[in-house]
């Protein structure tokens, strides 16, 4: 019984991270981030590829997206181009991903320490997240939630296709971060699961600090509450969107790196993992971080128990879990919402 709970908490911790990222992105940009799962697989498989001593295709994708973003930047600002602007666009969109690619080539090797590979993976996925916002969402930042959602689906499809291209159809596993193991009777802890708990807690605390105590964090929250108001007080809402996507990508990649030593990941596994993070995010109402974290643990627990007792209907149970919660939520707060086009 206890090991089921333990299993549930490990999964739940990952779902919590993803749920937090989804809430973050939705609150700031109103995008329901379907590609969150791709950040997970990209992070995990990039890390696994680097560990086996190869250069992952994602590093090249980042450069390609950077070039596209650079062109888009120049095209959008074609009426007000000046040197500083071009230089800035060049630095962010071209030099940064090229530098990441170059250092990947420079450092790559089968004997790399894990932290180096992790660092590189995070950089690569972060760049992809940033450019994804720039390319797919920034031009339609004011569109309806539905249109943004469809754009999210489009980018999910494209990224998943790239995933297959880069990583192949076979699943991969990565080396564990920590090989130690503990036993506190009757439970057995692997070093990896301890790492999962630790990293999750640290990330949640960091996010809390970021949103509560830094100017950028506060700017993001302001954007979430009222875009127009935020712009009027001088917050660049496009920057907020970019930061949100950057954070979501990093969080997704971290989750991926945390689980790839435990489970075999395929290029399309991320979608389902992301969706479960989603269930947690929805239970949290897409607004509350602590509630999302608690809900994620619940989802992980339910999943672990139902896979033990009714493994055939595990997914049915996990996904139907949302409905009573949604019902309660909308009964509790029958918000008078008006769609504005």
């Amino acid at each position, binding site marked *: 019984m206890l090991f089921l709970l333990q299993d549930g908490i490990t999964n739940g911790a990952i779902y919590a991270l993803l749920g937090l990222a989804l809430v973050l992105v939705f609150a700031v940009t109103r995008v329901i981030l379907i590609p969150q799962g791709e950040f997970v697989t990209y992070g995990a498989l990039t890390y696994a590829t680097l560990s086996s001593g190869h250069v992952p295709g994602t590093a090249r994708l980042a450069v390609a997206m950077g070039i596209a973003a650079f062109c888009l930047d120049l095209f959008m600002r074609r009426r007000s181009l000046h040197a500083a602007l071009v230089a800035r666009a060049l630095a962010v969109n071209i030099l940064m991903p090229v530098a990441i690619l170059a250092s990947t080539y420079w450092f790559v090797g089968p004997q790399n320490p894990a932290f180096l590979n992790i660092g590189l993976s995070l950089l690569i996925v972060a760049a992809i997240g940033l450019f994804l916002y720039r390319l797919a969402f920034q031009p339609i930042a004011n569109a309806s939630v*539905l249109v943004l959602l*469809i754009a999210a689906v489009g980018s999910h499809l494209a990224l998943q296709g790239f995933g297959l*291209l880069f990583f192949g159809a076979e699943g991969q596993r990565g080396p564990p971060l920590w090989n130690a193991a503990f036993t506190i009777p009757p439970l057995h802890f692997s070093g990896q699961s301890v790492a999962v708990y630790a990293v999750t807690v640290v990330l949640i605390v960091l996010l809390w600090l970021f949103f509560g105590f830094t100017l950028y964090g506060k700017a993001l929250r302001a954007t979430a509450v009222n875009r127009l108001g935020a712009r009027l007080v001088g917050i660049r809402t496009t920057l907020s969107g970019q930061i949100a996507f950057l954070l979501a990508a990093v969080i997704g990649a971290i989750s991926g790196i945390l689980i790839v030593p435990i489970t075999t990941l395929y290029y399309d596994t991320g979608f389902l993992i992301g969706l479960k993070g989603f269930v947690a995010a929805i239970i949290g109402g897409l607004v509350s971080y602590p509630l999302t974290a608690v809900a994620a643990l619940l989802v992980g627990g339910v999943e672990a128990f139902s896979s033990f007792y009714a493994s055939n209907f595990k997914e049915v149970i996990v996904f*139907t879990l949302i409905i009573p919660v949604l019902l309660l939520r*909308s009964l509790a707060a*029958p918000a008078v*919402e008006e*769609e504005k086009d």
Partner: protein
Amino acid sequence: MAERLPVVVFTLVMAAIPFIPGIPPFWIVLLDNIGLAALVAMGLVLLTGVGGLTSFGQAAFCGFGAYTTAVLTTAYGFSPWLTLPLSLIVSGIAAVALGLITVRLSGHYLPLGTIAWGLGLFYLFSKLEFLGRNDGISGIPPLAIGSFKLIDPAAIYFAIWIAVILCAVLTMNLLDSRTGRAIRALRRGHVAAEAFGVQTPRAKLLVFIYAAVLAGLSGWLYAHFQRAANPTPFGAQAGIEYLFLAVVGGAGYVWGGVLGAAIVVALKEILQGYLPYLFHGEGQLEIIVFGILLVALLQLAPSGAWPWLMARLPLKPSRKRRPDLSLALPRRANVATRGNALLSIDHARKQFGGVIAVNDVSFDVKPREIVALIGPNGAGKSTTFNLITGVLAASDGTISLYGRRIDNAPPQEVTKLGISRTFQHVKLVPDMSVLENVTLGAHLRGTAGALASMFRLDRADEAGLLAEAARQIERVGLTAHMNATAGSLPLGQQRIVEIARALCADPMLLLLDEPAAGLRHMEKQRLASLLRDLRSGGMSVLLVEHDMGFVMDLADRVVVLDFGTRIAEGTPEAIRTNPAVIRAYLGATA
């Protein structure tokens, strides 16, 4: 019938396609798939684009349709034609069950909820023994007419496209009717629709079922086309893709669904067919290009391909309606007698947490009387309106119309009893014509239901409603703009449209929330004379207004609120010199 011409032409073209000599069979299969997808997308147009309810679960309803016929024809030997109504009924019942739960969800919860049960149902399909688990059910008999079996893609082509065109016509009929107007008003929030008697939960459930039945029909056709059913095409990914089709084509337009299906299905097919030649068959390149193209398309035309295309059409099909003004609707029996209070408010109170928005307010409105409710901003005027019309429930006190308590009646009931209103923030459906918007006001005076509208059995009822609307538009002087979209009028005129809409409900008491705001001087004078006419015709008017000249000129009596409390009541002359009122407006020292 001129407006039906494009449909007839389209039908003829589609009917001719299989007879083109030498047309590749591959194209026919493609068109079959487009038709199947178009059916689902059309349901989504009504549900999402028109009704504002986003659903990711439509693929699951296709699954209900397909599995119903699959099980019944293979295991029980039913005839495929017999399973058609059964498939539709099963999808419909599933929609009622899921709809009762999910339609009540507000805002973003709804699409998320549909993802959830879409996924849940997918896994259910793939785990249940009698549905063949992951392998599904094969060996489904083909459709047959007599001894002619529709096995060939070119044969079932006709079944599919007859279904598509028939459903498109029925859907357009539905949208252009009393029920259709109610559905189209849903997306702008429920307050305005309910103020004219629309039962919004019922209307939402109706579109939900309608979309599900269309999806079920598509599933039924699919099962007999593929002659097999397995869970994959009914999963979450498929559900997302259907929504996709609708948005790409233009979610607000029936033909947008068909166009979206054509674009997406054809694009996928072309990419799958040709990209491997270009890039030597590496990976799933088509899915990458497909994804990127869709994102690009959304950035170019966020409202979809159909409106984009229509805007570029040289010949714009414009619709000019001239309702037959000789038709008349029965009027409300006039129970007005001078002297008795029509509306009486007795110690009405509304508290929002610690804030008392309306604090024990009492006043009356008598028959044939214009009463003005004035007061500084935040005095509780609009809240009082919301209490009277049933949008908000009073915390305490009574509100009655002719002695009948209405303080806990829902808005629909209040309207039925004879109170109709306009809104401070205009609540029209901007993409409906002025005529249609005004006709919504007469919702409760019509009787035609959804089925009657789909088969055009509602025309007599509809003509009466349209005639009444046209009469009210004439009365407020907007006949010239009758066929313009409401959103294209200046704000002041939109307020006048709201008055016409309120008049359409044949009220005894008209509630006007800042009707003169945004009007020019001449327009204000015309509005004042309109209101005087209404009064001499037997109607009472309660209005909130900030233009003091307008109010003092027009009102028989003025009630002044400040901070939720009634501070004065009397004739305009008495109010003008009332020290409490002057203090409230200008401060203590003035």
